[in-house]
């Protein structure tokens, strides 16, 4: 631990959910390395976080899904003088219909949502193991809990990430470092802009952010956001197939 001013790396810092979490940490005086693709957007986010109380904000413009992007991690950790929290937030939903017809698009999705994330997670895990402290937080999805016709390729990536993060948590547990997979439900962000958002199930990114910030401090390796999704997914996972198959979800 680096004391009160936590050192935090955020991959996909332009995500609505990640930004909401960063604001809470900023108010606590955190120090950030923010990673996202668009340098102008990084700048706007950085000045917001600084205004809110972040002690230091370094911006790294990078495509997180690029091969070997993870080799950058050590430099980032060095910049912070240690790693308290890494939040992996980037991801893309893809269009199920298009993906089913386009193997290149699938490869690209897997590279972004799974393969590159695995590399970052392993790199972070090594840092945490060395330090014997810190937390890796990865945004998965309830879509990873049971394959559904509406988004099972994305779901497979998120499900895979969940297994990976559980394993890292298991490995780090004896030495005091932590890893957590955060599984949001339906959240109002640009990723879901095209969906109807009328139901009571839809939450704001701030709700997920509160779960993330808490999970960075304590708790088990799997959290749902908002928390009620744990019970919904328990039900969905255990629905008998003959009922499940009739649901258009």
């Amino acid at each position: 631990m680096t004391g009160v001013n936590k050192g935090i790396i955020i991959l996909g810092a332009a995500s609505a959910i990640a930004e909401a979490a960063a604001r809470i940490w900023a108010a606590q005086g955190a120090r950030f390395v923010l990673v996202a693709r668009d340098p102008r957007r990084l700048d706007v986010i950085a000045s917001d976080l600084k205004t809110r109380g972040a002690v230091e904000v370094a911006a790294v413009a990078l495509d997180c899904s690029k091969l070997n992007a993870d080799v950058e991690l050590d430099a980032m950790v060095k910049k912070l003088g240690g790693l308290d929290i890494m939040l992996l937030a980037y991801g893309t939903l893809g269009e199920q219909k298009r993906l089913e017809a386009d193997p290149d698009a699938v490869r690209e999705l897997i590279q972004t949502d799974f393969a590159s994330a695995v590399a970052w997670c392993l790199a972070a895990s090594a840092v945490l193991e060395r330090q014997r402290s810190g937390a890796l937080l990865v945004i998965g999805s309830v879509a990873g809990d049971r394959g559904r016709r509406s988004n099972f390729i994305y779901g497979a990536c998120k499900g895979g990430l969940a297994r990976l993060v559980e394993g890292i948590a298991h490995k780090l547990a004896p030495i005091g470092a932590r890893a957590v997979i955060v599984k949001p439900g339906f959240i109002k962000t640009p990723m879901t802009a095209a969906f109807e958002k009328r139901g009571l199930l839809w939450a704001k990114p701030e709700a997920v952010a509160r779960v993330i910030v808490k999970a960075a401090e304590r708790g088990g390796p799997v959290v749902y956001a908002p928390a009620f999704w744990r019970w919904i997914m328990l039900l969905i996972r255990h629905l008998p197939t003959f009922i499940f198959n009739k649901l258009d979800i």
Partner: protein
Amino acid sequence: MSPTPFISRNDVLSWGRVHRQLQEVAAPRFCDELPALLDGSASTSCLAIGLRRSYGDSCLNSGGAVINMGGLDRLIAFDETTGMLRAESGASLSQILAFAVPRGWFLPTTPGSRFVTLGGAIANDVHGKNHHQAGSFGCHVSCFGLLRSDGSSHVVTKDNQPRLFAATIGGIGLTGVIEWAEIQLQRIGSAYLDVEIIPYVGLDEFWTIAEESVGKFEHTVSWIDCSSRGANFGRGIFSRANWREDEVFTPHDDQAWKNVPFDAPAFLLNRFSVAAFNELYFRASKAKTGIARQHYAPFFYPLDAFLNWNRLYGRRGMFQYQCVIPADEARVAITSLLDGIARSGQASFLSVLKTFGERASPGLLSFPRPGVTLAIDFPNRGVDTLNLLSRLDVIVSEAGGALYPAKDGRLSPEMFRRSFPRWREFLEHKDPIMNSDFWRRVAE
């Protein structure tokens, strides 16, 4: 980055919930998305909107595009020594207070809801309980960024582009998209106020208390019972307050909401339930007569404790009617307005009476001006309600008064032009593709 989409929706309503139409809605998160959105709506029309706390149709653009600015809510810079705050226009007053209060700063003035965006506060040049000292919100705006549909982007101050500045403050979104703004915050010595509650009966008493309070109290407002006649005619509760100096800077908590999740049945609000509520409210407040310490949230934002309280008016929604009457005409005109409303039996319980100060509002279409302002909620009962409001228009216009676009969903073009004599001057600055239901009704 894929372009931000417009989605067709018919559930984007204003606070009054009367108008329901299809609109193309976009919700950007970054200012760099705005030019493409303006381009994309060039063939129809476009309007930047905030948290839709406007009651009528000034934040709606039926059949056209709206850009929901709520995702552009970042702070850009804050100077702890001067209190100058620069933020993106979608930042809500609630977010600004959560940031500023613990640092010992407050908004220069605030409307009766904190769920209003910075852009919306500027575009309606909103007013608060301290108008008699602080003037309108626009008096505290030092500059803003304005994006026009021709692709040009302006940093506007009172000095460098005085006309565009005056057109945009109170410009109900029609001069372009306000991307960010810089405002001067006010230093406070506490998050608490000393609030004095004084019941009054009759307008004469109101005028007396109002006059003696102006110099001594930073905040004044009164609730008035619009349903009673006879001995209780013009009874109300005057409230006046000053900031404390006890250095307690606890901000409000937006998590502590109570929600009204469903539309209430229409019969809930009738003249009997309203009369009963008013009686109860008057008695309860009378019991609280005197001075008490109160946090700024219940003082400035009593209704914000109930998220979506507007749903109590049921599916047909409601109208609010807010007028301002010049001081010389006010006594007579307010009396006839109250009389007309009480006779109709249509008013609900939310009615506010307040005096405005002399400080000039900076906008060409600003509503606040010296005089007295009265705001009343009416459940929407169709033609009956509209006829009543037209009768009130006559009184207001004969007294040389004006109506508030932020609250309006029905005023006539004539009434609009009489309320805002500088509207012609405003036309020169209107952005050709920005438009709203309100504007089409009053100006086209």
